[in-house]
């Protein structure tokens, strides 16, 4: 045994040890989600980033929305609906355990849904489920829901991240240490660091190919660009507003995927503001914004413009894009008529999403051009959720509403828009109780028109969903019908 021999043995041992992580790389994925989530419980926040990080990764619902936006069975493997549409019988998947090893049963499902409906429990989407009157566990794996009225969207909504199943023992700690029934269990997350997930060995369904995932939240644009440039990211679902998207797209190791979302990008008015409660002011601002120029922020995408809060993919869509054509003179005139000839001062709270940051520059320009003094405040995502969404302390803000078919938010009294409109509320009630699709679509059209006519917001465009991914990473969603990054569907090309 001479020294060279020993060195050779060492070398071989090291190569062996080192090749393991190399081999294992095919089982790992690094996902960038841009916005730091306030916590990890999607039932307690409207922040889409929580849904993106956890939906169908950590948590699962009775149903799921697939990549095409269709409803599929998940924890409910099937259901019966009574002829009058008022009774749903769900047959729950047996053998499902939560990450804390507690079993998933009809009682647990009932607990989750009661918690969802309880306004005190703090689910910001609880209004979506107001059709549910009774929740009755019938045996270990059968759950009956009795409705106030027929609800066509119930199965779809049960598949949203707001309605994921949680478990009584862990529900209170899901914010910090989430426990769901999903294919991935929580490993670690500290503020400012990556969220670490790993495949849950007792998952009730097939084990996913990706065994470990690391989700980073880099809200600083410069830093995000640097980490993309350095190749530290395997998948980033929303690169469209990034200036360097063209340069990255030209790189051999990255590919860009063009997709669409159901998300409406809005310049949001706080209708409680004295000036903004004035329809003329809102209309003035609508005329002041050059929606087409705003699309400059997307170097490689050209998303669809909108004129109301509705997805152009929906059959009931009405094109109201040019309801308020770009006309600064008219805007100035309307402002003057409204009594703001000497100027109007508004604050503008801008959250960290890249599109919001970029759009805010153009919007400020447009607003200043018609004599509105805008005080721009760039605030963190947590601050936005608190100050704007929770406390409604803002004049203007900008955000994309990515939940599909969420027009009901204009009917909510406590929503952060402070949009109190009886006509719309009545319309929405009608929509919810109307079963006939044609009639319903007719009502949807009316609702769209009403929102446009009321200049409820400045409806800008559909949020594009250009994702960037490493060459070889497959299985990601082309479009984003709901905010989700389903890691179990990802895989690396062999």
């Amino acid at each position, binding site marked *: 045994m001479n020294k060279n021999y020993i060195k050779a043995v060492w070398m071989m041992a090291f190569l062996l040890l080192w090749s393991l992580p190399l081999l294992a790389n095919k089982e790992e994925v690094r996902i960038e989600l841009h916005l730091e989530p306030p916590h990890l419980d999607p039932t307690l926040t409207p922040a889409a980033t929580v849904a993106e990080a956890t939906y169908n990764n950590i948590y699962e619902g009775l149903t799921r929305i697939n990549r095409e936006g269709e409803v599929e069975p998940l924890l409910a493997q099937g259901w019966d609906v009574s002829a009058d549409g008022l009774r749903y019988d769900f047959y729950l998947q047996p053998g499902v355990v939560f990450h804390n090893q507690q079993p998933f049963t009809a009682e647990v499902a009932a607990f989750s849904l009661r918690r969802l409906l309880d306004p005190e429990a703090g689910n910001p989407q609880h209004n979506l489920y107001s059709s549910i009157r009774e929740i009755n566990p019938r045996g270990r794996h059968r759950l009956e829901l009795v409705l106030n009225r027929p609800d066509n969207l119930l199965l779809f909504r049960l598949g949203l991240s707001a309605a994921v199943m949680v478990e009584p023992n862990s529900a209170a700690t899901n914010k910090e240490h989430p426990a769901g029934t999903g294919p991935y269990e929580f490993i670690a997350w500290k503020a400012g660091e990556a969220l670490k997930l790993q495949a849950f060995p007792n998952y009730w369904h097939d084990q996913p190919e990706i065994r470990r995932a690391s989700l980073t939240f880099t809200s*600083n644009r*410069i830093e995000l660009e640097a980490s993309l440039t350095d190749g530290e990211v395997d998948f980033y679902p929303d690169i469209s507003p990034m200036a360097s998207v063209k340069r990255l797209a030209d790189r051999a190791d990255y590919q860009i995927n063009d997709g669409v979302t159901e998300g409406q990008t809005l310049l949001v008015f706080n209708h409680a503001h004295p000036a903004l409660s004035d329809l003329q002011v809102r209309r003035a601002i609508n005329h002041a914004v050059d929606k087409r120029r705003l699309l400059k922020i997307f170097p490689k995408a050209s998303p669809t413009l909108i004129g109301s809060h509705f997805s152009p993919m929906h059959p009931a869509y009405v094109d109201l894009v040019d309801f308020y054509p770009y006309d600064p003179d008219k805007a100035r005139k309307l402002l003057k008529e409204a009594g703001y000839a000497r100027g109007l001062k508004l604050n503008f709270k801008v959250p960290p999403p890249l599109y919001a940051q970029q759009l805010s*520059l153009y919007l400020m320009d447009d607003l*200043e051009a018609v004599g509105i003094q805008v005080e721009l405040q*760039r605030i963190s995502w947590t601050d936005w959720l608190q100050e704007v969404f929770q406390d409604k302390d803002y004049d203007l803000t900008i955000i994309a509403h990515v939940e599909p078919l969420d027009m009901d938010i204009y009917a909510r009294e406590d929503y952060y828009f402070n949009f109190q409109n009886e006509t719309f509320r009545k319309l929405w009630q009608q929509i919810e109780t109307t079963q006939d699709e044609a009639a319903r679509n007719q009502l949807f059209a009316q609702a769209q028109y009403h929102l446009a006519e009321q200049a409820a917001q400045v409806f800008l465009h559909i949020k594009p969903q250009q994702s960037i991914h490493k060459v070889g990473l497959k299985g990601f969603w082309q479009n984003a019908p709901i905010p989700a990054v389903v890691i179990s569907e990802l895989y690396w090309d062999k």
Partner: protein
Amino acid sequence: MRFLRYGLTTRVALLTLVLVLVLLAVISLALLSFGQYKKTLDEVAEHQVHALMSATRLVQQAEGMVNASAFLLLAENHFNRRQAVFEIEDRKEWMERLVDDLSNYRGKQVDFSRINQLNQSLFSNLNRINNLVKQRIDQRVDVYFQEGVALKDIQQLELINAEIGEMIRANHELSQDLTVTVGQQVSHIREGILSEVQGMHQDMATREVWLLYAGGLAFLVVLLIAFYINRSVVARVIQLQKALSLAHPKPRDIPVAGDDEIAWMAQSIHRYVDKINAHESHILEINAELSFLATHDALTKLYNRHYFDRKINEMSSEPTNDSFCAAMIDIDWFKSINDRYGHDVGDRVIIRLAEHLQAELPKSALLARVGGEEFAVIFQQIPLDETAALLEKLRIKLAEQPLEVEGLSIAVTASLGLAGYCKDGDLIACLKQADQALYQAKRRGRNQLVVRRVGKFKDE
């Protein structure tokens, strides 16, 4: 419990355990080394490289900040100005975090208050530039788009421009200072990495020697175990096997020392060989007795009729040229001795006679008991006269001296027939002649010797 204390299995198990322990120690050492190697690599990768990346990015951002301030400087309208400000704010936010990150570096550090101070100056200058540019944009609107431009306004614009220029130069200096300071930190980190790698190399060199020794030790233990097994098992088994392969294994050759399975087996074999040897000598004794009984008369221990006949036949089939005499001897009135004293006494009389015959007859004579009280003798190469004289002497001695048997004094006489000479080819005929001579002696009144001369002595 004996098994546990001394058994070979226990000992072999203990030795194997020693070997396993040594091997485990070697493996543990190797694993420990791997662990340390991995730890150092992780440390270098996680901490040092992270710090190095932070430092490099900080330098990049400091330089990028100068570019950003150039954009700010060039901003012709508020849109461009705000765009530049956004970028500056983003860079600033990141730079602050990078500085935080870097200040957590566990190795040698530069003076971070200096970096913070440089950063603060840089940012406050940028703020100032932003305000100046904002003023300049507003001023320019006044200057270019309003009628009646006042000289004062133009001078103001020039002043603003001059101050912006000064700020930009100051920022350039600050950014250079920052770069140099952070560069020093980079060099600290590089030294840290180098020293960790160096330390790791030294550790590894020591570990290699340790592993070599440990490997050697393991080899030695294997040798020792092989030696022990050879000495305590194989050698003894071979010794045992050698001892047992002898034609007549002797118990003293079987090694029985020790207190283990082999010793126990050897002891068993020892006992077994002992027993076999005892059996064998017993069988040999029985064989000797059997072969004696086959050729001798049980009562007198003389040759029996069977042996005598066989001998005569052998002699007849391999004739020499020797001359023989044959004699037949019969006790007189033996039946009356039996009747008078009983068979036991009769038997004793026959034994005494046989002893008498053995004592008186030459050793070369072939003497056998051929009947109840009848004896036959073949004399080889002894002259007939000499033989007759011998027999006569014998007869007289017998007749003169009564036999002392069980306290009785019994007078016994014998009749004798002698024939000679005959060749060995016709010994049977000769015996017949001797027998006839015996009858003649009986007829003549017993206690006498009758001699029949039938041939010539060889030498005559």
